[in-house]
């Protein structure tokens, strides 16, 4: 299988979808040159500026116009630049896009994809580093996916583009240059299907995006101590593969949930409840959680490091639940 990095896998997905369907177009700030993460690089050469549209710094108009286009026959893929900036278009996402089909009684379809580069790293500071997926999981009417590998990134983005509903794809910017095998053949990853990234029998770690890699590293460390860790990546948060997660928990009876966003009001809290509801009688220990602190992401490297959960935190949490 060819090896690609996460960013190039996303680029491949865009290229494949734009070739397949002339209604698909990309819009965002600086996407012709593929700034800042290179995902849209080279697309303008192949598809022209009408389908790879550099937009003014007008987040509300970028997202709003994408919705206008989507409800009248096009298939936009919006690059949010940094997910933090979605607040400038929050009305468009939360009130317009999310509610259109429902409020209008199913008359209107809004097949739109929002690419959300997000996440902590490189001292990008408080307006460029936050994990905001929980905001959107809390908005009925949006689908939310969050890949951790290049293959999943390509497969999920392609599914998102083909989906008749609005889908947000959270692309952790710390993963863009991470490499992995990507199938030669065009592969779609369905929404709502979790993936076991490592098999184990003593504890299930449910992790998303960058925390999947951290959890695999934690699993490696603990393997030497005879603790066998299963790592499950839900890949999509809405819809959620409840059964896939529960199946793992029924095998291991112990659960750690690892995410990067703040602990409070988070996706992990929701997942913990899902597991509790489905598997209460199977649990041999309380569910443990790894998450970021309840602060905006600070700038200074030691502060940022403090705010960054990692493999060591997952190791600690696993030790707590298996002891």
């Amino acid at each position: 299988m060819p090896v690609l990095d996460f960013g190039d896998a996303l680029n491949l997905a865009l290229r494949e979808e734009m070739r397949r369907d002339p209604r698909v177009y990309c819009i965002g700030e600086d996407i012709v040159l593929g700034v800042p993460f290179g995902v849209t690089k080279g697309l303008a050469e192949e598809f022209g500026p009408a389908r790879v549209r550099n937009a003014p710094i007008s987040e509300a108009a970028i997202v709003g116009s994408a919705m206008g286009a989507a409800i009248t026959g096009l298939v936009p893929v919006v690059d949010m630049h940094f997910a933090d900036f979605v607040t400038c278009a929050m009305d468009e996402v939360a009130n317009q896009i999310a509610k259109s089909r429902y409020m209008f009684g199913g008359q209107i379809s809004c097949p739109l994809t929002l690419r959300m580069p997000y996440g902590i790293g490189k001292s990008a500071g408080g307006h460029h580093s936050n994990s905001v997926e929980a905001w959107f999981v809390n908005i009925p009417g949006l689908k939310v996916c969050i890949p951790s590998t290049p293959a999943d990134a390509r497969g999920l983005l392609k599914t998102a583009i083909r989906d008749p509903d609005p889908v947000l794809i959270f692309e952790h910017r710390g993963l863009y240059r991470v490499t992995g095998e990507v199938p030669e053949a065009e592969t779609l990853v369905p929404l709502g299907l979790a993936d076991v990234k490592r098999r184990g029998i003593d504890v299930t770690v449910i992790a998303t995006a960058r925390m999947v890699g951290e959890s695999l590293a934690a699993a490696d460390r603990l393997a030497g101590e005879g603790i066998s860790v299963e790592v499950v990546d839900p890949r999509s948060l809405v819809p959620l593969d409840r059964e896939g997660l529960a199946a793992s928990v029924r095998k291991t009876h112990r659960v750690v949930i690892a995410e990067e966003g703040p602990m409070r009001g988070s996706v992990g809290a929701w997942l913990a409840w899902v597991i509790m509801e489905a598997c209460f009688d199977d649990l041999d220990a309380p569910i443990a959680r790894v998450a970021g602190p309840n602060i905006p992401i600070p700038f200074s490297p030691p502060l940022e490091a403090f705010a960054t959960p990692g493999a060591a935190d997952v190791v600690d949490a696993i030790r707590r639940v298996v002891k």
Partner: protein
Amino acid sequence: MYATMLRIRRAEERARELYAAGRIPGFIHLSIGQEAVAAGVCAPLQRDDYLLSTHRGHGHLIAKGGSLRGFMAELYGKATGCCKGKGGSMHIADASVGYLGANGVLTSGCVLAPGVGQSIQMRGTDQVAVTIFGDGAANRGPFHEGVNLAALWKVPVVFVCENNFWASTTAHDLSTAGGSIAARAAGYGIPGATVDGNDALAVYLAMESAVARARAGEGPSLIEARTVRFMGHFEGDPQGYRSRGEVEGGRQRDPIARLRAHLEEAKLLDAAHAARVAAAVEAEVQDAVDFAESSPLPAPEDALQDLFVHYPWSD
């Protein structure tokens, strides 16, 4: 246009009574007095042209040709409403006539419209997109973002500001700098026109040229139609903020009486014809009310439908 205005007036007057009688839940914002804007804006539009509206959108829906039955049943929250009771007065849409929704969030149409225009451009049809918003709404950022983007892309969009000089209880002069919304067009290099919004023909003519320009690929325009709302901001609004005289003055310029006088003068309408139109409108509105009254409410569990195409379990 005359029949359209009458249809809007009567439908809203009936809605007002029915609201007072407790038949219609929620809030309603009536456009009584503003019918000439709705009729004039929609008259040059085809069925497949698009219209994005505001919280005060009943007239716009009716003028665009939306189903009166679907409209009335939606106000009632019935299963047969054009949004199956999920939208209501402020979020009503009728996609079958290109009416892409009233909007509870002011000014949102201004940023959706450039995308609708872009989709028209990319699909290569000769449709146009129109968005209507209030003068108060024109002070939100999305107005500027939307007009700028539409002008930049030269998309077939007409921005229509329905200026009734009030934003809820706040007077135009206290909220809107510069005195003219149409004048803002100059900053974006597009045509801006101010018209008497109580004169359906004036609105129609301004709109006709803006639509022709859009269809010819020459890009967006901005029209400011100055009008008077006869009722409160919402039904039940005590209107302590404005004088009776203002509304009375507006009624002197009632757009329906005015168009009728004009048509009679031009010998295009006589009393007998006007009576036939009025009777037909009355029957249509009554039919819509009867339909709404006799329609079933949605089943409670229908609340879980229509969120997505797939995953009806709404997780």
